[in-house]
C-alpha cells in the first residue's frame, strides 16, 4: 500500500513539477473556460449549458494524462527497461501516477476555477464521477501511448488524442446544448471524461454513474490488455 501511495504521490508531484504548468493551468484554464462559458451562455438560455461548459472542459483538461508522451519518450530512449524491472507492474505504475496527476489538477485547478466562475453543483453525485473521469483519462492516455509506439512514435499523437476526446466527450459541446447528441455525451463511451461529470454536476441521476462505470471498466481493461500485449516490444527497445 505504501508503494501504491508513493506512486500516487509522485503523480501528484509531477503534475506541477514545473512552475509553467501551474501558470498555464490556472491562467489559460480560467480564461478559456470563462470565454467558453460566455459563448455558450449567449447561445443557449438553458442555465445548465454554461455550467457544463465550464466543468466539462476543466475536468477533461485535468484528467488528460501525458502518458502517451511519456511512454513514447521512455520507449525511444530505452528507459522503459528500468520501469519494467520494478516490482510493481508498469500498468499499475502508470495508473497510480495518472490518478495522482488528475487528483492534483481536479482539486487545485478544476474545482476551484469552476466555483470561481460561478458553477454551483446540484448535489454531490459528480464527485465519484471525477474518479471515473481520472481513470478514463488514464486509459485513453495509455491507449494513445500504445498507438504512438505502434506507429513508430510520430509527433502529434497527443494532439490527435486530446482533440478527438474534446469533441467526443462533451468537453467542447456541453451535453445540454448537444441536441440529439446529448445522450451520447452523457452515456456514450467517452462521456466519463467530461459530459457525464458535467451532467451530474447539473443534476443528472445515478444511472449516468452506472453506465459510465461500465464504460470506464471496459476502457481500462482494454488499455491494460494492450499494454500487456506490447510489453515485450517496450522492453526490447533501447540503446
Amino acid at each position, binding site marked *: 500500500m*505504501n*508503494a501504491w*501511495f*508513493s*506512486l500516487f504521490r*509522485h503523480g501528484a*508531484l*509531477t503534475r506541477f*513539477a*514545473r512552475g509553467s504548468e501551474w501558470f498555464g493551468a490556472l491562467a489559460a484554464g480560467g480564461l478559456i473556460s470563462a470565454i467558453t462559458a460566455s459563448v455558450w451562455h449567449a447561445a443557449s438560455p438553458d442555465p445548465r449549458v454554461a455550467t457544463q461548459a465550464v466543468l466539462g472542459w476543466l475536468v477533461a483538461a485535468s484528467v488528460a494524462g501525458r502518458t502517451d508522451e511519456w511512454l513514447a519518450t521512455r520507449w525511444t*530512449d*530505452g*528507459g522503459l*527497461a*528500468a*520501469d*519494467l*524491472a*520494478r*516490482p*510493481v*507492474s508498469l500498468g499499475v505504475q502508470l495508473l497510480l501516477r495518472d490518478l495522482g496527476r488528475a487528483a492534483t489538477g481536479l482539486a487545485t485547478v478544476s474545482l476551484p476555477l469552476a466555483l470561481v466562475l460561478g458553477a454551483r453543483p446540484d448535489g454531490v453525485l459528480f464527485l465519484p464521477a471525477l474518479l471515473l473521469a481520472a481513470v478514463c483519462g488514464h486509459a485513453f492516455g495509455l491507449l494513445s501511448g500504445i498507438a504512438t509506439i505502434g506507429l513508430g512514435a510520430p509527433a502529434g499523437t497527443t494532439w490527435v488524442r486530446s482533440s478527438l476526446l474534446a469533441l467526443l466527450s462533451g468537453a467542447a459541446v456541453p451535453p445540454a446544448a448537444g441536441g440529439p447528441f446529448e445522450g451520447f455525451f452523457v452515456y456514450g463511451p467517452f462521456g466519463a471524461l467530461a459530459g457525464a461529470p458535467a451532467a451530474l454536476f447539473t443534476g443528472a441521476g445515478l444511472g449516468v454513474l452506472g453506465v459510465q462505470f461500465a464504460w470506464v471498466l471496459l476502457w481500462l481493461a482494454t488499455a491494460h490488455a494492450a499494454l500487456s500485449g506490447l510489453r*515485450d516490444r517496450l*522492453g*526490447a527497445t*533501447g*540503446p
Partner: protein
Amino acid sequence: MIEVAGLSRRFGDRVALSRVDLRVEAGAVVAVLGANGAGKSTLVKCLAGVLVGSGTVRVAGLDPWSQRAAAALRLGVMFAHRGSLWPDLSAAEGLRLSAALYRADRARIEVLADRLGVADRLGALVRTLSLGERVRLELVGALLHRPPVLLFDEPTLGLDPAIRTVVRRVLREAVEDGAALLLTSHDLGEVAQLADRVVVLRDGVVATAGTLAELRARAGGARRIVVTAPGPLDDAVVGADRRLGSDSFELAFDGPSGPVVGALLARLPGGCDLAIRESPLDEVLAPLYSR
C-alpha cells in the same frame, strides 16, 4: 545467486541469445563481455524479467519471468544511462519512491548517498544533475534494499576515473556483503579489478568463459617482452615482431620467459634493455569477440 541454463532469445529472425549457460555464486562477480550487439544487454534484461526468453533462469532462487514482482524485490538493477529517477523531481523524491517500491529503509538513502559522495545533491532536480551525480544516485536506488543479486549493465559508462573508483568500491563492498554481481562492461580495466570470472558473448553465444588468467592463456600472447636498444634497430633484428619505434620492438609469448629471452639475446646487439609485462587485456580479449 544467478543460475542460467539454455537461455535463448530471438527478436524476429535475429538470434540475440542462444543457449547461454552461466552461474554467479553469492559473493562473486561475473563480467559479461562482448562486442556491441553481442547480447549483453538482452541477457541483463532477461535476468531482470524485463524480457522473457526460453530456457531456465533463476535469480535468488526465483524465476524472474513467472515470479516477476517477487524476483524484482531481490534484484538491484542498473541500466547504463537509462535512469529510473524522474527528471522533474528531486533525487530524494525519486529515491523515496524506490524505497517504498522495494520496501527498503528510507534512512539508507542518506547513508548510501553519503558514501557515494552525493548526499548534498539529494535535493537537486534530477534533470539538473551531472552524469556522474545521476549515476551515483541511481546506484543508491539499486542498492537501497540490500538486494542479494545485482545486475549492472555498463555501470561506469562515461564516468570520470574518480567516480569510477567510487562506484567500483561500493560494488565491491556489496559483493563482500554476499551479493552476486553480474555486470557488463567494455572497460576491461574495471573488469580486471572487479570480476572473478568472465563470460564472452559473441553473436548471442558464449564464446568463452573462465577467469581472466584462463582467458589470457587461451587467447595466447599473454605476456610481452619490450626491447629497447641504445640506438636504431635494423629490420633484420626486429624480424616479424611488432616495432614500437626506431629503437624498440615487442614480442608476445606464452609459457616460461627463459627460453624466449635466451633466443632474443642471441639476436640482439649489446646494451639492450628488456622489460617483461602482461599484455594489455583489451588486446588479449578483443580477438575473442569476433574470432
